[in-house]
């Protein structure tokens, strides 16, 4: 691949990872999630991408614990993913899609309505109790406390 030759395979992998996170972040910014906090966005995006259970089936409780448990080991082995999440957020900001102020995200331009290919998000769509929506109900402080329990 030419891109690999010019920028190195690592960079192309980064671009692909950023593409994947861009899809997830755009979906999380929109209905029904409306995630508007940088902190929540970073960790939620990470957990969503690394969630291996594509469906929580009939689970109705403990969404926070189950979803954030993805941070535990995975964050240790993939710290570069956080850098890419920040890179995507930075790109979205610099290109005028969003703005961030005091850790809060505001949407400036409407995104394309197509949904992310992520299997976990696809499994969440149409559920009466949406796990990501449930986790997003935590405020920033509570969310960070939960994150700290898992890292």
């Amino acid at each position, binding site marked *: 691949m030419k*891109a690999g030759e010019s920028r190195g395979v690592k960079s192309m992998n980064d*671009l692909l990872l950023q593409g994947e996170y861009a899809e997830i972040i755009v979906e999380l910014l929109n209905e029904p999630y409306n995630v508007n906090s940088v902190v929540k966005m970073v960790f939620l995006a990470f957990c969503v991408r690394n969630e291996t259970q594509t469906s929580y089936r009939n689970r109705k409780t403990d969404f926070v614990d189950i979803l954030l448990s993805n941070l535990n080991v995975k964050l240790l082995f993939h710290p570069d993913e956080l850098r890419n999440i920040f890179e995507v957020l930075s790109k979205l900001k610099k290109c005028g899609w969003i703005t961030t102020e005091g850790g809060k995200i505001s949407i400036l331009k409407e995104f394309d309505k197509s949904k992310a290919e992520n299997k976990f998000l696809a499994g969440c769509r149409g559920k009466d109790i949406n796990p990501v929506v449930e986790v997003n109900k935590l405020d920033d402080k509570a969310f960070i406390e939960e994150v700290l329990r898992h890292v």
Partner: protein
Amino acid sequence: MFRLKCITLYKGTEKKDYHFSDNAYVYGHNNVGKTALTKVIDYALGSSERLSHAGLDNIDAVGVYLVNDKTELWGKRTVTGEYFYKRTESSEYTLISLDTYKEYISELITDAPDEKAVKVYQKVFDENPTYRSFTFLNFVDEIGQGDLGAIFTRGKEIRHLVRIRNIMDFFFNYENIEKFYEKRMELDAVEFELRQYNDKMNQYTHSVGRVNRLFTELGLSYSDDMQDNYKTFEDFSDDFSRKISRPNDDLVYLTKASHSLAEELKLYSYLENQSQEAGNRKARTERLLSTLHSIIAENVEYAEDVSVITGAIEEIKQDRLILSLADYEVSIAKVRERKKSIDARIALLKSQAVELDYDKTLKMIALLEDHFKIINSAVDISRGSLLTEQAKTLRKEIKDIKNNYSQKGIKDFNNRLTQMYLENDITGVPYLNDDRNEEQFSLAFDPFSQVLVAKHKEGEAVVSYTPGSMARHNHLQLLVYLCMLEYLHERFTSFIYLPILIIDSADQPMEESSFEEIYPSLIETAKKIGVQTIFVSKARPKTVNDTDLIDITTGLNPFHLQSGEITTNENEIEL
């Protein structure tokens, strides 16, 4: 117009008649048999309940005299449940079944019953309706009056709830129900044809399979074309001889060829899977890069990234183009076809090597003849998919009709109910005057839950509420009954419901002066819609004509064994 003219109590050769006018008013104080009279009427009209109400003892039968504009009917029902009828007064009663009894009464309700509506009802609710199905609209019982949470006094019991709900669905959603019925009939016809077709197809498929097996057993060459097979069969059945295989049909050669093709198939399948996976991977990469591209494309700061992404996408497109050129599916299909043909030849050689038993061969020929008869009978293979498609479309349409409930009937009903309540000559009823002064006052009856609520304006919003006062409740309840009968009169002209309303003690919670005003208004509405009314009450409004009045103050049942005690002690026995 259908009218109940007379009710008779029989005891041996004695009898007691009660004649009813179009707006009869049965008057009598407590415990003389007012409620018993409503039970007698219901019993004479074919009720499924026994005649066990207190005070109705010592009678053998009850009779009913019914008329319409053209004919008349005398019905009689014994306390043991036998039914009789006669067409003229001077003739003798004839024993009939309950169904015939109901049928004769139905004939009096309407000359030409709306058979289509009846059929629609039968089909949709799987129930054969008679006028008895709708008698909950004809009787306002004393128990249950004034309850706006269950308007129909006979609709409270669980056994009636579902049925009344269906009936209301039928009355208020008839357009859709009718369409639903037509589509169901259409679907039934298609499904019937499809079933027949499937039976034939199953036989056909079974016979084709059997022919294949029998050909193999007999060592005959089987082809996909049934005409060819039939010809082979005819040739064989003439002289029992099988064609000798061509010289190149060497079993060793054929086995090697089959094995080689199996290896080829394995390789192609592997390549196909690899190609598919590579394609999916490239499609995903292209999608992810495109997403990132659409975000950063307009910012010059990311020009380098944009250029890399554009280049990569272009390259992926070329790769996918190359991948799409290799059509493994076609190659695999071709190899499979070749292998199938070789395998068939191997099977043929194998079976030809088997010795054939004469009796067994004859039996197999008979079986083949039978199967070819089925195969050669015309089966239109394309018809099946057409019918399946038709059935699928009809099922979808039926589902849409079920979900597409029209609120128009209910809306019209509620507008009329509100108009009936507010717009009349009644001036001296306090609660009615209060309601008239409410801003945007209206009534809302939900026929499915049988709940009536009022609406008025509170601030900027129109809100629902349950109005107070038992008298108001009773008044509203009676109006719902009348409004229902009016609704049926206008929209279901020839349907089999009784145009009669029998009201037991409606005046109880009302002040006498209020009832004096409300009664004529109710009668007026009933007259307009051609409904006969029978009021049963212990109050006697001045507006009641003598011709309408039936005085039962001395007791309803003259054959009652303890009738003498009733006048002296009211609390002991209810007559």
